[in-house]
């Protein structure tokens, strides 16, 4: 294979120069961050990014499952509704044809029993559709934590900009109100419960734990 040898060494030298400059900038940034004490803070935030990724995956999973559950239940409820409509039409025709026979042969009683059962099943579908909406609460809590992480990173980057900006460009900013909370930090929904002995993964585990405490 033949390699072009026009302007030998020119492109190579340019590339080496760019790499050298990037290396210098990286070193400067690294030194600046270390001198300003920002390296540790940014590293802490960076370590939380994989957690944010799994939290976002959890949101996608939960919303997907909820949508699937709702659509399945709607399909089943619609089938029940179609059944009610067709049965009503059929029994109505029997009533018009011979009302006495419709009652005597048990068509009406069977229809009423069938409607009672169908109505109960539709109610169960509606309850499940309602329960599927609990994803809003769970994902809302997870989203709040991811937003909090994004805000922290933003604050740290803004802090870095302020500390490195020329003095004449700085504008005084009021200090944020510190939060006071003597209670344990709440974690919200557990997005990766597998293999974590500190969390429960089912209601039966909660009940067992409470039972062991005498409840």
């Amino acid at each position, binding site marked *: 294979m033949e390699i072009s040898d026009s302007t030998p060494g020119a492109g190579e030298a340019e590339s080496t120069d760019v790499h050298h400059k990037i290396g210098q900038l990286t070193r400067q940034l690294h030194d600046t961050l270390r001198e300003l004490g920002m390296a540790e803070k940014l590293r802490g935030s960076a370590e939380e990014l994989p957690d944010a990724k799994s939290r976002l995956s959890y949101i996608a999973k939960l919303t997907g499952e909820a949508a699937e559950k709702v659509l399945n239940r709607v399909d089943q409820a619609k089938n029940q509704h179609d059944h009610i409509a067709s049965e009503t039409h059929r029994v109505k025709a029997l009533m018009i044809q011979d009302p006495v026979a419709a009652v005597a042969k048990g068509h009406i009683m069977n229809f009423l029993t069938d409607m009672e059962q169908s109505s109960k099943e539709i109610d169960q579908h509606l*309850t499940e559709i309602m329960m599927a909406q*609990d994803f809003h*609460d*769970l994902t809302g809590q997870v989203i709040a934590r991811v937003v909090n992480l994004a805000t922290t990173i933003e604050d740290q980057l803004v802090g870095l900009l302020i500390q490195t900006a020329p003095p004449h460009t700085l504008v005084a900013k009021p200090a944020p109100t510190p939060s006071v909370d003597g209670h344990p930090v709440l974690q919200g929904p557990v997005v990766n419960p597998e293999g974590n002995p500190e969390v429960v993964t089912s209601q039966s585990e909660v009940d067992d734990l409470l039972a062991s405490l005498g409840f």
Partner: protein
Amino acid sequence: MANPLRFLVVDDFSTMRRIVRNLLKESGFSEADEAEDGVVALQKLRNSSFDFVVSDINMPNMNGFQLLAEIKKDEKLKHIPVLMVTAEARKEDIVLAAQQGAAGYIVKPFTKATLEDKLIHILKKTGLQ
């Protein structure tokens, strides 16, 4: 037949308050009010009469643990059973809730059957039913 017991549902998410209230209604408990955090819940508990509290834990202003502690140290309120319904699944949170006097603990997401079971169990245990 509707049960006359009065419930207070505490959760910062309106969707969850609505779900719990609907489930209570389906279980025959149609008398229910709601609060979006512990502060509002405490005000309502002190200004009105309730027989049962169903509370979330992770809420702004005053969380469920703080609300539970306030209820249990108030002579007029401490008899009210508090059922925690929460996404907090850490064992230490469950133990803490039990130590603070919670009547029950349900981890979200939960089913209608789970809520009904806990309600019946607590109501029988406390003599409310």
